[in-house]
C-alpha cells in the first residue's frame, strides 16, 4: 500500500498537539494509517515497526517533524500530508496570535514578564529536569508536570529548591492551586482558609472540589508528585509544603493527601505536624492512620471525609456531625441500590470501573476490598488479582486508563475519551456486568465537553444491555465545581439525560456500586 511522507527540519511541536493531529488524520476517509511525530530514536522505531519509516526519515533528529500517511492510493496518502500541514498551522496560530513574538528561553520570558515567579514545565521528561534546574537557578518556583524524570534528578532539584526556599512541585505533578491560580489540571475553587499538600493529583482535585462545593475555599494547594513521599526523596517537598502552610497566615486548616508514604517519610511527617498548632487532617489512601493520629492529626477514611472534616474545622464546627450526615446518606444509597439491583437480570453481578484518575481508582479498590474483597486491576491492591490482559476485564474489575500502559501514543484519558468510550460499550456486552462506574474529572486542562463525550457511549451501552433484557447501571462521580469551565451542573445534566446515575463524590459513587454488587451476589 502506498506510503507518502514529509520531513520538516527544525519544526517542534509538543506531543499532545501531535497526537491530536494524528487522530484527525487517521479519521480521514480512506486513510489506512497516519502519523505525525518528532524524529526521536524511539519514534523512528515505532514507525519502522508499522512500515512507515521512509528512507528520508532515517537520519531525522528530535527537532525534525515526520509526517506519514498510508492509503490504498497515492492521492489519498498524499492528502494526509496536506491536511497535517493545515492542522499544524492552526495549532501554531493558537500558540501565538498574529505578530506576537514568543521568547525562546526562560531568560527571555523573565525579561518579558516582570515579577515572574513560577515556571510550569511539560516538555519531554529527558529535557524537563534540566529546564527545571535552569528555572530554580534563576530563583523561580517550579511545577514539573512532565514524568520520566530520573529519581536522582528529582532529588537534586528538590534539595536545591529546599536550600533556596523554592517550591519544586513534581515531577509528575498534575495539579496545584497557588495564590488562587489553577495550575495544569486544576479546578476553580475560591480562595479560603484550607491549605492542601498532596502527593496525589486527583486526590488534590477531589478534596479541593469537595471543599469548594461546600462553600469553603483553598488558601494554597501544593502538589508534590507521587514519588516525593517515597524513601528515595524522603518527602522533601511534602514536608516543605506542610511547613509553608503552617507559617502561612491565610491557612487555618491543613489537609494532607497521599498514597501511603514510606515508613521513614510517614515518621517525618508525624514529627513535623506535632509542632503545628493548626488542625491537620490526613488522608493516606490505603495507609495506616495510626501514626497520623498519634501526631495529633485527624485521619480521614476517604477523600470525601477529608474534605468535609476540613470544612467543619474551618467553620469551627465539630467534625463528629459529619458521620451522622453520611450515615443518613448511606440509608438513601441502600434504597437506591436495592431499586437498581431489582431491575437487573439474573447473572448480572459485577462492577467494571473505568477511571481517568489514579487516586480515585485506588479509593474505589479500597472501598471494595473493605466490603466485598479485592477486585481485578492492572494495579491491584492484592497481587493475586492482577489482570492478565489489561484490555479484558473479569469479574469485578477497575482500571485506571491514565496508567502508562494505556497512554502510549495517546493523550491522557482526562483529555482524550476515545479509549474509555470504546471500553464502556465493550463492557456493556458482558451479560455479567451490573455496574459501569466512571469518574468524570472537570477543570482546566481536562476535556472541555465530558458530558457530551460520554453521553453517546452511555446510551449505547444501556441500549445494548436493554436489547438483551438487561438493566445496566452506569454510575458517575464528578470531580469538579460549578465554576469550572465545563460547568458541573451542565455535565451532570448531560450524564443524567443519557441515563447515568450521578453521585456527588467518588466515595458516594463507590458506596452505591458496592451496595448494588453486594445485592447481586458479585462476591
Amino acid at each position, binding site marked *: 500500500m502506498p506510503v507518502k511522507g514529509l520531513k520538516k527540519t527544525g519544526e517542534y511541536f509538543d506531543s499532545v498537539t501531535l497526537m491530536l493531529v494524528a487522530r484527525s488524520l487517521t479519521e480521514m476517509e480512506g486513510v489506512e494509517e497516519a502519523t505525525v511525530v518528532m524524529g526521536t530514536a524511539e519514534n523512528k522505531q515505532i514507525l519502522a515497526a508499522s512500515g512507515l519509516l521512509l528512507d528520508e526519515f532515517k537520519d531525522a533528529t528530535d527537532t525534525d517533524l515526520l509526517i506519514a500517511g498510508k492509503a490504498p492510493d497515492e492521492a489519498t496518502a498524499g492528502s494526509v500530508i496536506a491536511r497535517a500541514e493545515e492542522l499544524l498551522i492552526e495549532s501554531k496560530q493558537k500558540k*501565538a496570535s498574529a505578530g506576537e513574538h514568543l521568547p525562546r*528561553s*526562560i531568560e527571555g520570558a523573565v525579561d518579558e*514578564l516582570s515579577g515572574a515567579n513560577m*515556571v510550569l514545565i511539560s516538555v519531554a521528561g529527558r529535557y524537563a529536569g534540566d529546564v527545571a534546574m535552569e528555572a530554580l537557578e534563576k530563583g523561580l518556583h517550579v511545577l514539573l508536570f512532565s514524568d520520566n524524570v530520573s529519581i536522582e534528578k528529582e532529588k537534586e532539584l528538590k534539595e536545591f529548591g529546599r536550600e533556596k526556599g*523554592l517550591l519544586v512541585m513534581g515531577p509528575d505533578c498534575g495539579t496545584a492551586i497557588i495564590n488562587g*491560580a489553577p495550575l495544569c489540571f486544576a479546578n476553580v475553587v475560591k480562595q479560603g482558609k484550607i491549605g492542601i499538600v498532596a502527593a496525589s493529583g486527583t486526590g488534590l482535585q477531589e478534596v479541593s472540589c469537595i471543599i469548594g462545593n461546600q462553600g469553603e475555599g483553598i488558601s494554597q494547594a501544593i502538589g508534590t508528585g507521587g514519588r516525593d513521599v517515597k524513601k528515595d526523596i524522603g518527602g522533601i517537598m511534602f514536608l516543605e509544603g506542610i511547613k509553608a502552610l503552617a507559617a502561612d497566615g491565610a491557612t487555618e486548616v491543613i489537609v494532607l493527601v497521599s498514597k501511603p508514604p514510606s515508613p521513614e517519610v510517614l515518621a517525618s511527617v508525624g514529627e513535623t505536624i506535632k509542632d503545628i498548632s493548626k488542625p491537620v487532617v490526613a488522608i493516606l489512601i490505603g495507609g495506616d492512620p495510626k501514626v497520623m493520629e498519634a501526631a495529633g492529626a485527624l485521619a480521614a477514611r476517604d477523600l470525601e471525609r477529608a474534605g468535609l472534616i476540613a470544612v467543619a474545622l474551618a467553620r469551627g464546627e465539630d467534625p463528629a456531625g459529619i458521620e451522622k450526615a453520611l450515615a443518613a446518606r448511606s440509608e438513601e444509597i441502600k434504597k437506591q441500590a436495592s431499586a437498581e439491583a431489582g431491575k437487573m437480570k439474573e447473572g448480572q453481578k459485577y462492577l467494571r470501573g473505568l477511571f481517568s484518575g489514579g487516586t480515585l481508582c485506588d479509593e474505589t479498590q479500597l472501598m471494595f476490598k473493605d466490603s466485598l474483597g479485592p477486585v481485578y486491576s492492572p494495579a491491584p491492591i492484592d497481587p493475586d488479582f492482577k489482570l492478565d490482559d489489561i484490555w479484558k476485564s473479569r469479574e469485578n474489575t477497575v482500571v485506571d486508563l491514565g496508567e502508562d500502559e494505556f497512554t502510549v501514543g495517546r493523550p491522557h484519558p482526562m483529555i482524550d475519551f476515545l479509549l474509555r468510550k470504546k471500553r464502556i460499550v465493550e463492557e456493556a456486552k458482558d451479560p455479567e456486568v451490573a455496574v459501569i462506574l466512571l469518574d468524570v474529572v472537570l477543570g482546566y486542562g481536562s476535556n472541555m465537553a465530558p458530558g457530551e463525550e460520554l453521553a453517546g457511549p452511555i446510551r449505547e451501552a444501556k441500549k445494548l444491555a436493554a436489547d438483551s433484557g438487561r438493566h445496566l447501571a452506569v454510575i458517575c462521580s464528578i470531580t469538579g465545581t460549578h465554576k469550572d469551565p465545563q460547568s458541573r451542573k451542565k455535565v451532570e445534566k448531560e450524564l443524567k439525560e443519557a441515563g447515568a446515575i450521578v453521585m456527588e463524590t467518588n466515595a458516594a459513587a463507590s458506596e452505591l456500586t458496592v451496595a448494588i454488587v453486594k445485592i447481586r451476589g458479585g462476591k
Partner: protein
Amino acid sequence: MILNGLFEQELKSINIGLVSFRDALKDAGYECVQVDWAPPAGGDEDVMAALAALGL
C-alpha cells in the same frame, strides 16, 4: 520568609510545553508567558553529549 514570599506575591507564570496550560491561566485571569521551546542542540543526542563533554 516562607518560600521567598511566594504567597504574598501575584502569581506570574512562565509556561514551557503544553500551550493549554498557558491558555487556562490566562482564561482564569493570571499572567503567563509561553516559551517557544525546542530541544537543545536540535535534540541530537550525540551533539548534546559532545557539548556536555566540553562543559557547554
